[in-house]
């Protein structure tokens, strides 16, 4: 019987710039159902963070409630973590991010956690353009509470124990675009090649990055009548833009056909190559992105890849002009600069 991971690792695992192997970014062994899409997303997060050479202690992972929200226990075991209340992850991240801008904030949520109970928080965190990556592990159901339809379940889709869903499903990327998101992507847990670069790009983007990842629930919603089962998603997924992420320190070697490829330099010097597949999509144009989403949805297709990116994004710290240094590094002298300063302020207001 095994409930523990063996301590041995593959001796040929590559090391990143910090000298760490992928194993240094792992968490404890997953207790999710065998075959749950969420585990694959966890594996992608591990690989993305390893390949980006981020020191584990420079990341904070936060989540709400659900199988999806449990998954941060299974990756980045050496990072900061906070498993918050159902639907309330965004406000906790907001607090943490405001207090310490030096960490990379990774929010992990589910479709229930986001699109039902957490909807209000979700829209507001987008609207404020908080500097974070927000991953939704989207399985169209409440996995943890035994598979009830969630608000992202497609109309007509029937999970294992339920009748076809009578309601219209919420399209989170569309909602995010509508709410002013500056980075919107969608992927599939079964497509690591697409998802890993998206996570990397999202982590490097300055501002709010939504990655909606369709992630089949093998136990309650992987049946034939569901539109979130492995086979259906594979058949209906259409990549809009294929992303190739080149970190700042690496030389850019790939060359794509001009015309269909954009080279986007992020604020830290990293480069995102965006190789356009869908004719109709201009991922730097919000209206085009919204139209492409709508068009694919009408064709019963799932548009994946990078859907929209605002290269001039201004994140919350910049908008509010907050302290450059994390609050925990401010001394009493910084916080209480003394009589003279107070005097000057008062004088300036006279």
């Amino acid at each position, binding site marked *: 019987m*095994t409930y523990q991971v063996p301590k*041995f690792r593959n001796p040929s*695992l590559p090391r990143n710039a910090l000298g760490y192997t992928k194993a240094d970014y792992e968490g404890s062994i997953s207790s999710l159902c*065998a075959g749950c899409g969420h585990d694959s997303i966890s594996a992608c997060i591990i690989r993305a963070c390893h390949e980006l050479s981020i020191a584990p202690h420079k990341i904070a992972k936060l989540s709400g409630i659900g199988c999806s929200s449990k998954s941060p226990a299974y990756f980045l075991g050496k990072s900061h973590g906070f498993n918050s209340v159902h639907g309330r992850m965004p406000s906790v991240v907001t607090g943490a991010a405001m207090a310490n801008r030096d960490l990379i904030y990774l929010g992990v949520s589910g479709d229930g956690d986001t699109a039902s109970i957490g909807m209000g928080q979700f829209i507001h965190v987008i609207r404020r353009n908080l500097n974070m990556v927000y991953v939704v592990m989207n399985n169209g159901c409440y996995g943890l509470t035994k598979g009830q339809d969630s608000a992202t379940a497609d109309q007509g889709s029937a999970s294992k124990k339920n009748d076809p869903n009578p309601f219209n499903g919420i399209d989170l990327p569309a909602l995010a675009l509508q709410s002013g998101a500056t980075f919107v992507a969608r992927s599939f847990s*079964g497509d690591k090649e697409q998802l890993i670069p998206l996570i990397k790009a999202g982590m490097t983007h300055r501002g709010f990055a939504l990655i909606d990842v369709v992630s089949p629930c093998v136990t309650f919603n992987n049946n034939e009548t569901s539109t979130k089962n492995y086979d259906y998603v*594979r058949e209906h997924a259409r990549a809009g833009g294929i992303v190739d992420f080149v970190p700042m320190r690496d030389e850019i070697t790939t060359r794509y056909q001009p015309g269909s490829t954009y080279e986007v330099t992020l604020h830290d010097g990293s480069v995102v190559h965006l190789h356009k597949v869908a004719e109709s999509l201009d991922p730097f144009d919000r209206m085009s992105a919204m139209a492409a989403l709508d068009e694919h949805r009408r064709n019963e297709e799932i548009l994946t890849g990078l859907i929209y990116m605002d290269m001039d994004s201004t994140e919350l710290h910049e908008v509010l002009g907050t302290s450059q240094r994390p609050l925990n590094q401010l001394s009493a002298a910084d916080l209480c600069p003394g009589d003279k300063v107070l005097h000057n302020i008062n004088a300036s207001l006279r």
Partner: protein
Amino acid sequence: MKPTDIKNTQHFHKVVDCQYACPAHTPVPEYIRLIALERYTDAYMINWQSNVFPGILGRTCDRPCESACRRRRVEEEPVAICRLKRVAADKRDDIEHLLPPVPVSKNGKRVALIGAGPASLTVARDLAPLGYSIDIYDNQFAGGGMMRSQIPSFRLPEEVLDEEVNYIVERGVTTFFDTQIDSMKEILEKDYDAVFVGTGAPRGRGLDLPGLDEAGDKVHLGVDWLANVAFEHTHVIGKRVLVLGGGNTAMDCCRSARRMGGEDVRIVVRSPFGDMKASAWEKEDAIHEGIPIFDNHTPKEYVIEDGNLKGMLFEKVEAQYDANGKRSLIPTGEDWVFMEADEVLVAIGQDNAFPWIERDQDIEFGKWDMPVVDKVSFQSTNSKVFFGGDAAFGPDNIITAVAQGHEAATSIHLFCQGKSVSDRPAPFTNLLSQKMGVHEWIYDNAVKPDERYVVPMAPLEEVLADRKLEVELGFDSATGYNEAGRCLNCDVQTVFMEDRCIECDACMDVCPTDCISFVGNAEETELRSTLSAPAQNLAQDLYVSAALPTRRVMVKDENVCLHCGLCAERCPTTAWDMQKYIYNLSYAGQ
């Protein structure tokens, strides 16, 4: 790559590294599990079936299995496979009633075995139960060959040797001990249906340097001296002893000399320490007994004063390797080194010698005056005459002699039935699911982090005072259990059924050693570089599935799989199963 054909017996056979490396293909993990269950007799019998001398080999085997052991690829030390074999031998019950019966009425075929070393004894063991009349000839007083004459009692106690030799020689075979065979012609004239030559490589190589004649009886051939010690013709040696050579014979010589009165015993060897032929553990044991090793010293001269041996002169050399790794020893130009000595033991190699085989008996001799022997059937150019053990291809070790004995016995049996010796029986193989529940397996799949346990030894003063006192004490049951737990159960195979796979990636994500990848297919070299972790060990195969619905293939690098079963536990559709692979050689008559 083409999908792996797991019906081919070799793919999973190679995954069981120890069993694959063992010349006799002993089912190692199977007996290690039995030791953990304290089923020592069963563990012993599995060994006895494959390697005939578990108690002897559990102390003396060259252990090719341990250098191959998978554990070495994920940590420092292999499983102590050899010493676990000894645990089974030490702790078993009497097994005589479990041995195959030897029929009283014979099958009418007569076989002569020349030499009673491990090779011949294996042939006898395999053929006697089939009703053959077997005559064993050996010039020593009892069976065992070099296991008796060469391997010192402090490594292999006589009782252990006698017991396992007697399981063969006392059960329905005719022995002619103290019988030197001087003519193959005479043997062949006795109209045997087949003759097996298992006479070993009995001749020690000498070292002819200036002063040898005057040194007289102070310079011995190592193998002869060891035999004289074993047979109690020699009781003492001088205080200062130089042992020339870097192989296992040299190690046995120096350690024996320490027990025969030698106080300043030294090993002097031409090659650098790291290139010495002796196994690492034999060198350690010698050093532990206070025997220094002088490497990079080429012997030049026996120094004689007043007609007596005073010592030897050596030239210091340095090893240089060319682009092909070929070594040459280049003199450093320093003054020659003198070392005092009362006696010298020369242990620089052994040769085969067949003066007793007349060259007109249709037995062709080739290079280095060695008989021409088929590598699979062990038949010589005289179809009646078979060779095995050191006699076939030069000095090797016990387990190789045993393995060759099995093959020769199979050939002799085929030959005596008028069948072709190339029509050999296939091994018996089977795959058995180990699944008992969602997280439950018949085998203990948790991977233990324990480091290799050390075998306890008798106190140094005591062993040096008594040449027959065994140095190693063997593991007790508790340590045996712990050491057995280190085995990764490499015979429990990960079997993939692609028609069940939904490509959820769960196995690939959970695998602690990143063995599993789902990737686009390619040629092997390219495929090896595109996996989750690059598959750099070319000696280890890839396990490739047929194309999956996404047109990718599952590729598993067998290299560092821990057989932990997590892939099978994580798979929602049981596309992976853990199945025990049984691979048993077929022996004569099977």
